[in-house]
Every structure is written in C-alpha cells, then in structure tokens.
C-alpha cells in the first residue's frame, strides 16, 4: 500500500497540523491510517511462532513513537521514517530473552553468594581472598562485589520495607502496584521470569511486557492496548499473582 507523492505531502500536511494543534483525534487518525505498517512488519516476523496479534501490538507501539517523533519538515516521508522504528520494536520484543524485567542484583541477593565464595576461596588458597578474586569467582565486577559487601543493613531494610506480617497479604490493591513491582524486581533469575512470562496468556503477557520492559504506565498501556485502565490494573495484578505462584521458592533468595 504505497503512498503516492501527493499522499506523502498530504500526510506531511497533517503532521504539520498535528504539531501545531496537538489534536489527539488527528493523532489517532494518522495512527490508524498507518496501522498497516505494524501489521506488515508483524506478518514478516510471524513465522517464528509468536502470535501475530502480539507482534502487531508491539509494532504499533513503534508506530506511535514514530508519529510522535516525526518532523514533517525534515524532508523524509513518514513511511520511510516509521518503518525502522516499527521493525526495531518488533525485533526488540523478539530478542526473546531480553524481557529484562530489570532484575537488579541487589546486595541482599549477592551477600550469600559472596559468603560462599569467600569460604571456597579461603579453602583453596589458605588465606582470605581479595576483592578481585571474589569478583573473578562470581563473574562479577569488583565494584559490584565491594558495594555488596559494604551495603548497609539499615539502608536495605528501609528501601525494601514491605508491609509487616500483620498486614493482609490478600489485600493487594492496598499495597498498590508499586509494591508488586518491587516484589517482581526482587526475583532472582531473569531467565526464569522470561520462561514464566511465556506461560501467561497473550493479553496478560503483553501487558506485563509493556509494563516492565517498556516501562509504560497503566494509562499508557490502556490506551495502547485499547482497554480501560481499570482492566489493565486487574490484568497486571492477576498476571503478577500468577507468576508469583509459579515461582519455585528455591529460585529465590529473597521474596516477601
């Protein structure tokens, strides 16, 4: 569905109007007019077993980004501009293993590993190890090891403070999504999470992906996926809960 030269100029004109007025209805129209781009890209990537819908969703995220970024006076036409962005989004989603639910290697996680490493190295060398030796042993960089060893128990407690045992754990709405996010962030193994994410049904998976990988707010996700924010909240909570239940306690070093 190529655009003729006059089509291109029309599109550029619309963009100029959009930049001038910020009209959301106009923005939507431009997006809908170009919805064929993410669909085309999704079709191209679809053979690898991902669902077409998912890919199209992800691709349309790229489209939206392109719409928001495109400068009509730069001389390019919009389709040429948007295509790489859309392809990039889908590729990123694909890189499978980078649903990096940003798992920070917190000091609390590392400490037991470091303790074990020290014991082992002490046994091997007959003396206490150096920071560099510990780092080498754990395949971490020395700064990370040093920081973990120096991390203050007081700091860790205050930043990871969860509701006490007395609070009602089933009343998750009370804790808010931020707390759930922190819980998720404390899980150890990003690979395990990726595998778990794949067990979720498409919609939930998409929403969790958008939340943790694209760092979108619930409102943004709702707009993107085409549903209400309340529904997104519910799906996020349900998805997180499902993940929580499936996690093998042995895979975790620390979990509320």
């Amino acid at each position, binding site marked *: 569905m190529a655009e003729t030269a006059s089509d291109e100029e029309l599109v550029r004109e619309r963009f100029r109007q959009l930049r001038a007025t910020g009209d959301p209805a106009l923005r939507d129209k431009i997006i809908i007019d170009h919805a064929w781009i993410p669909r085309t890209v999704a079709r191209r990537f679809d053979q690898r077993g991902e669902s077409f819908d998912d890919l199209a969703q992800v691709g349309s995220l790229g489209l939206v980004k392109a719409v928001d970024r495109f400068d009509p006076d730069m001389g390019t036409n919009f389709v040429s501009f948007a295509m790489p962005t859309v392809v990039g989004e889908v590729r990123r989603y694909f890189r499978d293993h980078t649903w990096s639910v940003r798992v920070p290697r917190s000091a609390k996680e590392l400490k037991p590993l470091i303790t074990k490493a020290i014991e082992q190295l002490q046994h091997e060398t007959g*003396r206490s190890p*150096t920071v560099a030796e510990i780092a080498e042993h754990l395949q971490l960089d020395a700064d990370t090891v040093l920081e973990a060893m120096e991390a203050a128990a007081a700091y860790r407690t205050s930043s990871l403070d969860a509701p006490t045992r007395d609070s009602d754990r089933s009343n998750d709405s009370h804790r808010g999504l931020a707390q759930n996010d922190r819980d998720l962030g404390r899980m150890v193994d990003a690979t395990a999470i990726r595998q778990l994410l794949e067990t979720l049904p498409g919609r939930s998976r998409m929403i969790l992906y958008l939340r943790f990988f694209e760092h979108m707010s619930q409102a943004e996700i709702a707009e993107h996926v085409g549903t209400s924010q309340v529904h997104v909240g519910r799906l996020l909570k349900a998805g997180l809960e499902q993940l929580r239940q499936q996690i093998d306690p042995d895979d975790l070093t620390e979990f509320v």
Partner: protein
Amino acid sequence: MTATNAGPGIDVAVADPGAVTLTLPPLPSMVRVGRLTASSIASLTNMTIDDIDDIKIGISEMITMLIQHGDGSPVTLCFEADDDNFVVEGSTAATRLDVSGNDFALATAVLEAVAETSSVAFNDGRIVIRLMKAVAVGAAER
C-alpha cells in the same frame, strides 16, 4: 599501572592513583563515609578482605577520635595506596588533645592492633593521626 599476580590465573593491575583527599564535616554519619572511601581505595591495592576489614576499623577509630577531639573543623583524610602499602593520614584542627580518657586509650589500642604502624600527634593546632598497612597479597606471593 603495575601488574600483580594475585593468584592462580588472576592478573590484576593495581592502580596507583596517587593521593586521594577527602574532607568531611565532623559528623558521626561521616565516619561511615570515610570507611567506604577507605575500603574502595584499599581494594585497589588487592589486599585481602580481612586486611580491608582492619583498615575499616582503623579508619573508623581515626575519624571518631578526630571528631571527638577536634574543634568542629572539617576532618581531612589523605590516602595513598600502591602495590605494597596503604597509608592514610587524618587530621583536624583542635585546641588541645586530651589523651587521658578511656575512650582514647581504647581507640589507640585498636588502631595499633590493626595497622602495621600508627601514630597520633598534636602539632601546631592540628591533631594528626597516621595509619599504615602493608599489602600482604602482592608481587611477593607465589
């Protein structure tokens, strides 16, 4: 940069950053800042973690003494570290140095125990405390 063979299969380049100077307000919360700086610098020398722990104790004693006996002026710490040695000199302005208290005796005893050499002096209105620790794991090993 010098290279040190720190053990089987590990070659570590030891940084020689020259002098690192830290100026701290004389507050209790700053003692920990001094410890963290000291341990970071000490870890550049590739000394063992036990020795780094000793340095943390020594620095802690040093800064605490300077805060308690100083006149409220900032505490200055000057670190020098290379392959063989870790040296830190801490100082602050003071009107006098009272060496009679139990606290002082305890702190200096600990300082002496954790360092190869240490000294506490009062000159020209400044208390100056020095601590030197030898790097045990270094070119000499293996």
